[in-house]
């Protein structure tokens, strides 16, 4: 292919333009990575745009409010950070969480905000990486955020804890690891039960209702998986059941042949999975591929659409999960939430969106009490909130856990339904 000077130049010019366009296009999305130092407000609107449906972003709307009104303090926007994975394998969690939070905040802002003040949300992408989340926590402190919603990853929340505790910034996380309440961090709150609750309910169902006798376990050694492992083992022990095998994998492992072969040799009737959504899905896909027919049991991850999608609908059929949020049709409140969520994002909500919505509602209620003030006052106000939420009736204890109940659901035709 002989390239003449002219066409060569033309090619170069075109490619240079392409690079420029690409770089310009991406620079905004790269901002969400959080490792770059960008003004937070831009980040929020970027993610809202990539999120799809929502047009009137809370952050952009209220950012302008913040800009125009500098003088009286009581009309300035209240800054809340959402720190969550917006990229990587756990980004679905981060997206659900952000969507749930944003819905609650948008509704509150539309209804006049917190005693007349708008709430300004800014999303930071922690990539489900504790190192990144630590940096973002520092950024939130220096950026003047008075509260944080997120992260969805227990490990990230644990990493952020010392910084937020020192800065007296309350945060409501979607993580479930029992390691979090053990931190003794007075600013940490959970928007769902811990793994202990999930797995006690699950173990009781597996042993007493479903009469499983040979239960195998596969969990990852991340903060969430470790929490699941310990909680489920303890719950089984209380029922005098010993798992037939206990396999540990890593959170970013992709080939589970070895662990699954050991499991298959034990011929279990139930397989407990303690791993995030996508990894749980991959494990089930490979387990079925290796001929393991055991019933899949797990906590929240096995109830999600992303799990079903990753595993494949046929492979996920019959999977049992323990969840505080079974369906969108549970009561009038969940129906209203589902309708609003659907209207905003064009998709049905699930557990993670629901509990993030609850967390945001609690935060908003507490902010109303403190009249927009943060710090210790906000912390006390959150702990005092009694809230009838989508995932349960919240009443926070000293460790930051607000709900202590889950139900059992079963995947039927790819959809979570209540166990009869």
């Amino acid at each position, binding site marked *: 292919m002989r390239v003449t000077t002219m066409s060569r130049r033309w090619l170069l010019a075109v490619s240079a333009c392409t690079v420029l366009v690409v770089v310009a296009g991406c620079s905004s999305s790269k901002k969400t990575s959080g490792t770059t130092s960008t003004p937070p407000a831009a980040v929020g609107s970027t993610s809202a745009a990539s999120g799809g449906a929502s047009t009137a972003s809370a952050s952009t709307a209220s950012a302008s409010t913040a800009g125009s009104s500098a003088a009286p303090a009581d009309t300035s926007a209240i800054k809340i950070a959402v720190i969550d994975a917006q990229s990587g*394998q756990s980004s679905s969690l981060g997206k659900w969480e952000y969507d749930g939070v944003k819905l609650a905040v948008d509704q509150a802002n539309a209804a006049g905000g917190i005693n007349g003040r708008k709430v300004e949300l800014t999303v930071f992408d922690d990539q489900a990486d504790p190192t990144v989340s630590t940096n973002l926590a520092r950024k939130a402190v220096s950026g003047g955020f008075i509260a944080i919603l997120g992260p969805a990853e227990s490990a990230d929340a644990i990493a952020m804890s010392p910084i937020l505790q020192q800065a007296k910034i309350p945060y409501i996380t979607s993580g479930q690891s029992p390691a979090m309440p053990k931190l003794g961090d007075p600013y940490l709150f959970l928007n769902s039960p811990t793994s202990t609750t999930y797995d006690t309910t699950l173990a009781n169902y597996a042993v007493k209702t479903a009469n499983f006798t040979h239960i195998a376990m596969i969990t990852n050694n991340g903060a969430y998986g470790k929490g699941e492992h310990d909680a489920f083992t303890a719950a089984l022990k209380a029922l005098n059941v010993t798992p037939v095998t206990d396999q540990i994998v890593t959170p970013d492992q*992709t080939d589970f042949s070895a662990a699954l072969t050991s499991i298959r040799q034990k011929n279990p009737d139930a397989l407990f999975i303690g791993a995030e959504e996508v990894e749980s*899905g991959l494990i089930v896909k490979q387990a079925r591929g290796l001929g393991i027919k055991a019933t899949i049991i797990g906590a929240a991850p096995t109830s999600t659409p992303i799990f079903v999608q990753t595993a494949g609908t046929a492979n996920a059929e019959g999977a049992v999960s323990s969840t505080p949020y079974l369906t969108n049709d549970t009561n009038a409140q969940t129906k209203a939430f589902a309708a609003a969520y659907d209207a905003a994002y064009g998709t049905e909500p699930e557990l993670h969106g629901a509990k993030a919505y609850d967390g945001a509602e609690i935060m908003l209620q507490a902010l109303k009490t403190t009249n927009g003030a943060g710090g210790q006052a906000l912390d006390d106000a959150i702990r005092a909130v009694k809230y009838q939420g989508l995932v349960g009736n919240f009443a926070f204890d000293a460790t930051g856990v607000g709900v202590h109940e889950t139900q059992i659901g079963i995947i039927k035709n790819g959809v979570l339904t209540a166990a009869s």
Partner: protein
Amino acid sequence: MQLFFQTLVGGIGFGAVYALVGMGFTIVYRTMGLVNFAHGQIAMIGAFLSATFFLDTKLPFAVAAIMSMAATAVVGLAIEGILRPLEARDFDLMLIGTLGFGVVLEAVATRIWGATGRAVPAPVDRPLQIFGIIIRTYDLVVIGVGAVATVAVWVLLNRTKAGAAMQAVAMDRDAATSVGIRVGRSNAMAFALGAGLAALAGSLAAPLLYVTPSLGSSLGIKGFCAAILGGFGNINGAVIGGLAFGILDGFAAGHFQQYSDTVTFLVFAVAIMVRPTGILGELTVNRA
């Protein structure tokens, strides 16, 4: 024993993918002396493209993979074209350039397909049972396709004029130029071929893994290790290295469970210290 063979089979399946990634690295390296650090991300683009063709356009899996390979080869050509002016000036800059392209490709993928990623169902998923060992049919597909691709690359390099030209450039760039071989075209071919192989690896990996923009870095690192382990610059080495790395990874996962990654890379590091030229040991192409 059953566990041993089962782990072996699983390891070979993933090894075939690493081998394909490693081969792509190698082809570009042996021709240009350049490590293409965007290679993993190119594989990720290939995975996304074939997932899109397979799931959204509803094309058969094989057709989707081939179309993805063609489209990704064009991406490879574009990268080479943009980086070409750097080759004569500063090779280190070209290296940095590929790193930059890796970042750009990941951002582009996030832009186009979102960060959430997608699951790709295996086109065939009936397990076969032989002597108590369960073999996933899809693993066989991956191994078979990997073998065919290896042979095709070998034929291309050793039995065609273009391949001979690429080999000549790899051996002695100046001598090749003086006998009238167009080095630029040879480089472009290497990049396109490398990108096509990356897309094939990505397409095959998609049903085994989960396709996200960050898939590139994990595939890239393991494929690069495979190429180094086999002997960087050696096509057969990349295949052997890939299989060895996949098997190593599988056994490490079985025996060391949560410490598998640590053990895998530790063994890899020791192997490279003992034999820096890799298993097959290739002469080091040094153009920089």
